Every structure is written in C-alpha cells, then in structure tokens.
C-alpha cells in the first residue's frame, strides 16, 4: 500500500498581526495568526528583543484567554449585597455618569478620599498622571506587595535592580547564582539565558529552599532555610574579605567605598558623607593624598583614606566594611546552623566565586572612557553573575538582604562589567535622580507632584503636618520610609480601620484583592463587606476594572469591563516598565488585532474619557473639551517633557526621531509595521560600565533617558538610610514615633545587615516550626490562568508539598490531607511528597485555588474543591503585641509584604469533602463555559 496523500504545505493563516503578549508581564513579541478574522494561532516574534521567537505556555494559550467564557461583557452595577456576585448590565453612559457622580464631588472637597490602586498593569506612567491630576495622594501600583525590596534596594545601592531592570551577561558569565527565583517577570529571557549558559557549560547555582524549575536544572543546589539568605551572603562576604579576594580597583573607582564618612559619634553629622561646597562627596586622591570631589578628573580614590577636619575624623566607607564583616558574627561557622548550609560549603562557595571572578577574569578589547576622563584600553570583567527575586525580597528582612547581595556583587566587581550583572535602560540611574514622593492635597487641584519616588531622608517623607502618614497605605511614613512603590496590600486594611483616615471611594484596576493578591483573604473579604452603625459599607464605594469574572468583581459596586490584550491599545513605555535589554533601549505597543465582540472598553481609554468628564488638567483642552479621543491618541500626543512622550520610537514629523522628537501622528502605524516595538541599540563602546561610561551617558541623553549625564558611585554605604537611623537616634526635627525608634535604629543600618524575619519573633516557633512558601507555576499567571481551558488542565489544583522528613514523621501517604495552621488561621489541603526540599519547608503553587462561582468555572471545578490559597494563613499584620498598635507584616524599610515569613504547623487529618476554608458560591455575572471545545474545527 502507499502512504495517503498528505499536504505538507497547508496554508498557515490568512494574516499575521504582530503585537505584544500580555499573558504575563514579561511582554514578549507575538505573531498572531488570523483565519477568517479570528485568532487561530499565536507564536513568538523572532525579531523581538525580549523573546526572540520563543513563547511560554501562557503565551501560546492566549487564544483560550481571548475566547474565555469568563470575559465580562458589559458594564455592571451591583444589585445584590457585596460579595454575592449579583449584577445588572448597564450602558457605558450610565457607568461613566455614575463614576463621575461619585468622583467629581470628592475631588472638589477631599480628593484624598479617592484611593486609586492598580495591579500589574503596564501603564503606570499614565494611571499615575491621571491620579496626580485628580489630586489624590493615594495612588500606587502593586509593587509594594510584589518585590519593592528588590527594586528599592537595587536602586538605592547600585542605581538599578534585578527586578526587570537588570540581567546577567548571559554571553560571558561563567558562574551564575540565582537567589529565590521560581519564574521571575523576565520569564522567557531567563529561560533563554539559562539555555545559553548550558550551551557554554557555565555553572548555575540555585539558592532556594525548593528545587524545581530553574533550580532543578542548576548544577548546584543550595537548599537554604527561608529568610536566612542575608546571613549566607554576608558569610561569603566575610570569606572574601578574610581572603582579600575583592576587586580593589573597582571598589576604589566606581563605588562609594573610598568616600569619607564622619566617624565621630558625638557629631551631629555622624555617619554622613563629607562633602564639598557643591555637595559632592569627598574621597582622598591616592596620588596626592588630598581630599577631592569623588568625580575629580583623573583621580584614583584611596580606599583607606582618613581625614580629620575641624577635629572630626572621617574615614573611608571601606573601613567600616572591613571592621563589620570580618567579625565572628558573619563567620561561616557562626551562621551555618541557622542558614542550614554547612560552614564548609559556605567557604567552598565563596572560594569558587572568587576563583571564577579573579582567576577566570575576562577582557573585551573595547576601549572606553570613564566619567573622570580616565581612558581604559579594554573592558575587563569578572564573569560571576547573580539574579534574585521574591525569594529574598518578600521577607521582612528583604531590603537588607537585597542590599547584602549587591554588596557581594560590588566587592567582586561584578556589576556592569562583562560577565556580570548588566542594567537595562532606562537604568542605571542614581536614586537621587528619581522624583521624590508628593502628597500635598488641594481640593479641586492636582497633587503637587508625582506620588512615588525615592526619599533621601526624613525630609522627603509623605507626612501630614501632625506627623501622621499622608497616604492611606502609609507609604513614605515612619512605618515604611523607603516604600518606593506604595503598599497596596495595606490599602483595604487601613481604609477599613480608618488608619490613618477613612476614604470614600476605592478604585482598583487589574488586581484580584478579594482573593489571591491579598494577605488574609477572608479578613479582606470581611473588610470589603463590613458595614458601620448606619448599615453603610465601611468602604462606601468600590469601582473596579477587570476583564474577567474574577473574585474581586463580586466585591465592587461598579464594574468597568476591560478588553482583552488583543483588543486594545497599550503602551509599554520607557517612562514606565519598558521592554529594554542590556544592549538596547526598546519600547512596545499593543493594538487591537481583533475587535471586541462585547460591550467593553480599554480601561485606559475609559480613564481618558473620565479625565475629560471630570475636567482634569492634562485631559482637557483649554476650552474644556476632551484633550484625547482615547488612549491611542494619548500615547501618540502626550508629551512628558518637550519631545519626550510615552513612546520613544518614530518620533518627529518624519518619524526618524529616536527617543526625542515632536509627536508623530503616524507613530502607531510605524510601530505596527515594525512588529509593534521599537529598539535602539546601545553602542559597543557604551555596552558596559554604564554608570561611569561617558559614551553611555551621552547616548542616554541623546535618546532622552535623561537630560544630562548622570554618572554616580555605587552605594555600599547608604547615606539616606543613615539619615533615617540618625533621626531614630534623636537627630533632626522630623522624629519617628517612639514605638518605631528602636526598630528604625536597627533596620536602617547604612551597611547591609541581617535580622530574623519578624514573624519568627512574633510567633512561637516551637509551635509553628515550619516555613511555608508559594511558587509561581511557569504555566500559570496568578488568578487569571485558571479560566484558560488549556492551562487549567496542567494546573487544575495544587497539593501542599512536604519534605521527606515531615512526610515520614507524620506518616503521610499519597492521597492524604493535612491541616496547616499558622498563628492566624488554618487550612485543610491535599499533600504530596517533594524530597528535593529544605527539611523545614512546605510549599505550594501560587494562586491556583479559586472561589466557587468565579471565572465562569463549574462550582465543582478542582480549583475550588482541591485547590487552595496559602493566603488564608498570612496576615497583613503581625499578631497583636498587646500595645494596641497595628504592626504591619512588612519590611520596616520599604513596607514590602512579608509573604514568605510565614511559620506553620502541620497535622494529618481525614480528607474533608473539599479543601478548607470554603466560601459561598459566587453568582457568575457571565454564566458558564461550554461543554466541549474544538478549537480550529473546520466548519
């Protein structure tokens, strides 16, 4: 017999439209194949700087997201009690009028009574502008509960962070150490990078209590005990210093190690830098031995400099580094037990790091010139690199731990050098070049400036005249002084408690706060539905924009239904969270590759409309008319500074402007033609040493990243932190409340330290001996993956994974259930064995558990019957200390939610009918999905 005829060249699709993925925040380029005007297949865009053609599971499943039955269909007005899920569909006119009726009077009287918080959207430069024009200080995105420790520690220490803005030099690194990463925002780039390291045979070390995913392919696994990374890192610092294996030249030239610090405890300036009249920190020039401004041409600063001036001794930062970290406190033998890694292995790891950094140093024959005018014949590199994410940042000691990691990198001379960590534009950028937080409210007027920023000391805090927090989330208050991203996880809790004050309207966008993105989910649900004496909701009004029938929808009074990511314009801007790579500045757009088939509107366009209806400056023309027709119009025509707008590419009348140029009416088309992104390559001479590299600085100015060159020194020693510490010691006129003094004195140490996670001190660790963690599954995105028919077959429920010792001790076997309890609550869940796990740790996948009735899923969907959230065990506050105060379960410096501090106890229990706790079934505003899918069926 002969083989049947087979057409091996069938037509693939009618048309390809290139846009940007939004199945997660990684922002890969996609080729959307259309057949008969419908999405037929999605694959990666090969030309795209982020993913270069590859696509993750979520990205490939986009078609199931765009067709999901859970999509909201029209604006909704709540008709049942909050939390019932009972709604009535209304027109957009009615919806917008309702919003205006609520918001306009507030703006005229007390704009701070609107709290507007956004989730993982990528239009923060736009939403913040809206909030600023409205005049409320209560705006932030989700960074505070996500990874602000990482972002803030990076920016304060080295002017850029791992979080989205830094990446290892995948092409040259020989030793890559990954701390606390399961997936990261840079999902595909990290996987591609790991693949490249594997190709070259570079060593990958995974530091993680759990050995899955990236940590499973790592050559070496450091099964660290949660919350102790800071100790582990500082012990390696101790080893490097003890052995003198540090990059002295790098430290001298590019960090503040040689900067002179006031060393006189009696002085009011104790701990602050010695500066010249222009405010520049001073160093001792090693050639002349004289103090000079750090950036003086041609100097080589002296790391051991000491200077006595006016009777006060000043010593180089390096003195403090040496004295602090050489002490026994940080010796491997001291920390080993706590960290769960033997002293021998810690010493070995440090030795290997040093060996690769110094014995395998690399050199790229590329001359460059630094900011002091010193010419370098080549670019030398230490091929050791690090990357870290929430595993170290989502702890109450996370900020200092992230700082410790940057300290380690700096001592090795491994940032912005070949083989080390590289920044992606718009970074590097020194912390003091960022805006500072603003909170000055004037009814009927815009806020006095941007909400978020980087404080340099107590003077920059967002406090009201009486010293209490100006913001509802208490960001930039003494409770969280350096909270660069705000504290979204505290908004509902504080608003409910009226601490620091009550609000009227809560407006949320793209954040499932009634479920997986809140700590203490049940508590938050109760706060959202709680009523006062007169029967009114304690949080009177809630406006929410979601695209799908999420749990949060049920708790809002007015729903503004969004489009899906293939149905709208979006802008992934250099003003915000762009798609840059270390070698290129790049930004991107989304555009409606298909038209919505429902009565929904892109939320940004809705904000543009609301802005005009509310008459917000920046959204209305001089004659009071709408300034922009929609978000697309805004993207093209808004200018942040003259010539600089949301999109950097194809600017100017002729579309040739790169970074700078007048608005170009054809800009979006030019993006679409170019695959929906724009990219400008970093010149070869500017590729490394960016913070100090004249060529890079000039290039950055040219493309509009900043207006003048901004060379700076890395901060081993953080002067802003010292200012807060000094205030806690009693210096200065802005003083912290008494109850925070001691905590600030300790936490605000200007050099990295380690202290135990707060929960360890707040609960009985004998009663709750275990650590409980979550990890992101690579094939799921938070709550929004479960509505996806393909992805939910991969992760339809989540077991609690237990290490072998606990498994055996409690006599667990396959199919068993356990009760897991914390100081705050208990859950009952299915268990499974995971031998490649730290012996004191249990974990589960994040956000798989769903509430019955949400997401257009069957009420008996496994997500609801077996899936569960760990969030029920995590509280936004620490257990009461008996002082009547509300102590946030957050990092004391940034307010980062301490998700991973959780301590638990486990007990075997008989299997219940369903995972506990269960909640009432939500009514679905969108009905339920079909019984059968045959995607691609030929009709």
């Amino acid at each position: 017999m002969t083989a049947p005829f087979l057409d091996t060249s069938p037509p693939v699709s009618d048309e390809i439209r290139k846009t940007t993925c939004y199945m997660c925040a990684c922002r890969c380029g996609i080729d959307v194949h259309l057949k008969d005007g419908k999405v037929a297949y999605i694959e990666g865009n090969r030309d795209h700087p982020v993913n270069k053609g590859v696509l993750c599971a979520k990205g490939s499943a986009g078609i199931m997201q765009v067709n999901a039955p859970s999509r909201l269909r029209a604006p909704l007005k709540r008709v049942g009690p909050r939390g019932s899920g009972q709604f009535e569909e209304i027109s957009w006119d009615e919806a917008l009028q309702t919003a205006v009726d609520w918001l306009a009077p507030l703006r005229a009287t007390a704009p701070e009574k609107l709290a507007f918080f956004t989730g993982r959207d990528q239009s923060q430069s736009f939403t913040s502008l809206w909030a600023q024009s409205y005049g409320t200080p209560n705006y932030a995105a989700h960074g505070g509960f996500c990874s602000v420790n990482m972002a803030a520690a990076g920016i304060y220490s080295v002017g850029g962070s791992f979080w989205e803005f830094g990446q290892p030099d995948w092409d040259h690194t020989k030793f890559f150490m990954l701390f606390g990463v399961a997936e990261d925002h840079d999902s595909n780039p990290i996987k591609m990078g790991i693949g490249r390291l594997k190709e070259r045979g570079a060593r990958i070390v995974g530091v993680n209590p759990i050995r899955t995913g990236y940590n499973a392919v790592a050559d070496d696994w450091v099964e660290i005990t949660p919350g102790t990374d800071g100790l582990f890192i500082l012990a390696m610092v101790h080893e490097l210093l003890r052995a003198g294996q540090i990059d002295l030249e790098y430290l001298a030239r590019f960090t503040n190690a040689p900067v002179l610090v006031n060393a006189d405890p009696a002085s009011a300036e104790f701990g602050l830098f010695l500066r010249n009249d222009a405010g520049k920190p001073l160093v001792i020039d090693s050639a002349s031995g004289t103090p000079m401004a750090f950036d003086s041409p041609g100097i080589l600063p002296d790391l051991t400099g000491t200077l006595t001036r006016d009777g006060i001794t000043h010593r180089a930062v390096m003195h403090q580094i040496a004295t602090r970290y050489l002490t026994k406190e940080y010796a491997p033998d001291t920390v080993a037990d706590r960290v769960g890694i033997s002293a021998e292995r810690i010493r070995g790891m440090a030795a290997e790091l040093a060996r690769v950094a110094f014995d395998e140093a690399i050199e790229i024959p590329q001359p460059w010139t630094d900011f002091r005018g010193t010419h370098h014949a080549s670019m030398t590199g230490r091929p050791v690199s690090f990357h870290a994410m929430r595993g170290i940042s989502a702890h109450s000691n996370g900020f200092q731990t992230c700082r410790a990691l940057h300290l380690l990198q700096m001592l090795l001379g491994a940032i912005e050098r070949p083989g080390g960590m590289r920044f992606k534009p718009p970074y590097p950028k020194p912390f003091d070049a960022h805006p500072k937080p603003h909170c000055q409210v004037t009814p009927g007027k815009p806020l006095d400036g941007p909400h978020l920023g980087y404080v340099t000391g107590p003077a920059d805090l967002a406090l009201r005249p009486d010293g209490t927090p100006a913001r509802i989330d208490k960001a930039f208050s003494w409770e969280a002084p350096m909270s660069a991203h705000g504290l979204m996880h505290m908004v509902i809790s504080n608003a409910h408690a009226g601490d620091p004050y009550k609000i009227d309207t809560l407006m949320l966008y793209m954040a499932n706060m009634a479920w997986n993105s809140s700590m203490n989910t049940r508590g938050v649900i109760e706060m959202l539905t709680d009523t006062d004496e007169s029967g009114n909701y304690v949080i009177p009004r809630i406006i929410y924009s979601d695209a799908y029938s999420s749990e949060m929808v049920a708790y809002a009074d007015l729903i503004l239904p969004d489009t899906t990511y293939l149905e709208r314009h979006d802008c992934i801007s250099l003003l915000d969270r762009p798609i840059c790579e270390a070698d290129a500045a790049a930004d991107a757009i989304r555009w409606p590759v298909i038209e919505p088939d429902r009565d929904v509107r892109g939320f940004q366009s809705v904000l543009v409309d609301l802005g005009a209806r509310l008459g917000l400056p920046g959204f209305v023309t001089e004659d009071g008319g709408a300034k922009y027709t929609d978000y697309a119009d805004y993207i093209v025509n808004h200018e942040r500074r003259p010539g600089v707008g949301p999109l950097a590419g194809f600017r100017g009348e002729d579309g040739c402007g790169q970074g700078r140029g007048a608005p170009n009416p054809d800009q979006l088309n030019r993006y679409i033609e170019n695959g929906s992104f724009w990219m400008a390559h970093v010149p070869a001479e500017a590729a490394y040493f960016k913070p100090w590299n004249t060529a890079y600085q000039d290039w950055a100015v040219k493309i509009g990243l900043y207006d003048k060159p901004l060379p700076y020194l890395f901060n081993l020693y953080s002067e802003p932190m010292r200012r807060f510490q000094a205030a806690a010691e009693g210096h200065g006129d802005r003083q912290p409340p008494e109850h925070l003094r001691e905590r600030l004195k300790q936490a605000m140490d200007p050099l990295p330290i380690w202290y135990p996670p707060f929960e360890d001190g707040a609960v009985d660790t004998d009663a709750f001996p275990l650590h409980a963690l979550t990890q992101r599954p690579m094939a799921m995105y938070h709550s929004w993956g479960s509505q996806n028919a393909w992805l939910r077959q991969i992760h339809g429920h989540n077991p609690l994974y237990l290490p072998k010792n606990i498994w055996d001790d409690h006599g667990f076997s396959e199919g068993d259930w356990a009760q897991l309890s914390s100081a705050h609550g208990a859950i009952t869940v299915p268990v499974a064995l995971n031998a490649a796990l730290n012996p004191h740790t249990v974990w589960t996948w994040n956000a798989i558990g769903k509430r019955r009735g949400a997401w257009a899923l069957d009420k008996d969907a496994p997500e609801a019957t077996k899936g569960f959230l760990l969030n029920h065990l995590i509280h936004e506050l620490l257990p009461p200390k008996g002082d009547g105060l509300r102590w946030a379960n957050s990092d004391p410096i940034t307010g980062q939610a301490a998700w991973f501090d959780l301590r638990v106890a486990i007990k075997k229990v008989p299997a219940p009918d369903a995972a506990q706790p269960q909640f009432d079934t939500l009514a679905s505003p969108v009905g339920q999905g079909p019984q059968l899918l045959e995607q691609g069926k030929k009709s």
Partner: protein
Amino acid sequence: MHPAPSLIIFTTLSGLGFGLLFWLGLGYPDVSGWVAATFLGLGFVLAGIGLGAAALHLGNPQRAWRAFSQWRSSWLSREAVMSVAALSVMALYGAIWVFAGERLPILGAIGAALCAATVFATAMIYAQLKTVPRWNSWTTPALFLTIAAAGGAALASLVFLAAFLMLLGGILQGVAWVTGDNRAEKPHSTIESATGLGAIGKVRAFAAPHTGENYLLREMVHQIGRKHIKRLRVISMLLGYTLPAIVMATDPGHTEAAVALASHVVGVLAGRWLFFAQAEHVMGLYYGKGQSDQ
C-alpha cells in the same frame, strides 16, 4: 487497563459463541432440524453480540470495514477477517445442515478451525502486547481457547468434555495468574528504564504533566486493591471452573447444566474483568504507577 464492559462482554460472549460454533462444526451434538437451528442461532447470536459490543468500543464504527485490510500484520484485523470467515462458513454449513439435513464434515471442520482461529486472534490481540506484561504470554491464547471450548462444549451438551475443559481452564487460569504475577513483580521495564534516569539513582514520579485525567490514565491505568483481587480470583475460580466442572462431571439434567453454565459465565466474566483490571500497561510507569504496587 480500563476494564471496559464492552470488551469484557465481547471477549466472553464471542468466546462462548465461537466455542459453540466450533463444536457444531465438528459435528456435535448430533441433532437436526429446529434443534440444530436453535444451536446455530445461539452460536451466531452470542458471537454477534460479542462483535457488536466490540464495534461499540470503536471511535468511528462506521469505518469498521477498514479493519479487514491489515491481516498481514495486525491481530485485530486478523480477528475481523477470521470472524467473518468463520461466521460465513458456519452459516453455509448450518444452512445445509438445517435445510438439507446434511452435515458436511469438511466444511464443518473448516468452520470449526476458523472459529478456533478467531478466538486465537482475539487472544493474540492481547497476548502480543509487550506493553502489558501480564498479557504477553502463551497463557493468554491457551486460556482464551480453552475457555471458549469449555463454554462451547457445555452449551453443546458435551458435559464430560465440558467438565474436562473446565478443569483444564481452571488450571490454565491458575497458571496465568501465577506467571502473570511473576511478570508483574519482576518487570523488564521499570520507571528507571522508562525515564533513563536510573544511572543517577532511584526514580520517583514527582508530578504528573496534568492535574486532571486524560485518555491514557482512563484507558490504561486502573488500580484495584489486593484484597479485591483475591476475592475475585476465588469467585472466578469457584464459579468459573470448579463448580461447573463438578456439576458437568455428574451428567446433570438441563436445569443443573444451565445453572452450571451460568456459573461458568459469571466466573469467566469475573476472570475477564480481572484480566483487564489487573493488567498494568508500562506507560503507567511514566505516571509513577509501579508494576507491582497494586
């Protein structure tokens, strides 16, 4: 393997039907006229129900005719061809027998051989599968053939022969269980060979590729408790072989014979259920379903 009722019924009833036709083809029992017609009818109906049940098992029964094409390599195709050939020959033989009152021994012998071949082909569909070690043995066709012959003999009122064949069937069933258990306990394939990871150490399935079910798990992974197995084996042995063999050996009357036959069928159904339910497919190794952890 999933003990699909259609397959259990198919193999049992068609075995019985072809078993009866086999003896009819060989000239037993010595009857004629409507009695012969009844015997033939019974054989055809049983074989027919069995084949019908098998067709129901198909995803696209309307294309079943295609199954006749691959007799050169496929036991399933051979079974299809053989069964149609057997039924055709037996139909011709039966027609001549019933209507002309003539039993053509050569035609009958050919028909009988084809009936035996059909049962053999059915058995070989299972026995050929290296992927199911429990089935992959000479005992599978031996047992299928013996059971078919025994049930057929009982139906054909060849009571002593039936008694002997039931005894033999019981022995073969015992041998099949014991050797099958052995193969299952010392499998050629292990999770280590399935994954190739044995060189590193002991392998354990950590997480399945999907949290729900899929075709493979539904079709090829079926777990039953050891206790359950023991009980069913005893039932199958007693009802399927011991009891009917004893009854048949006593030259029973019609009622007793009918009860014995019914007992045999129930016992065989139980045995067939076990045949499927207990059989582990090596594919299960990928899902961490060990060959020996029943």
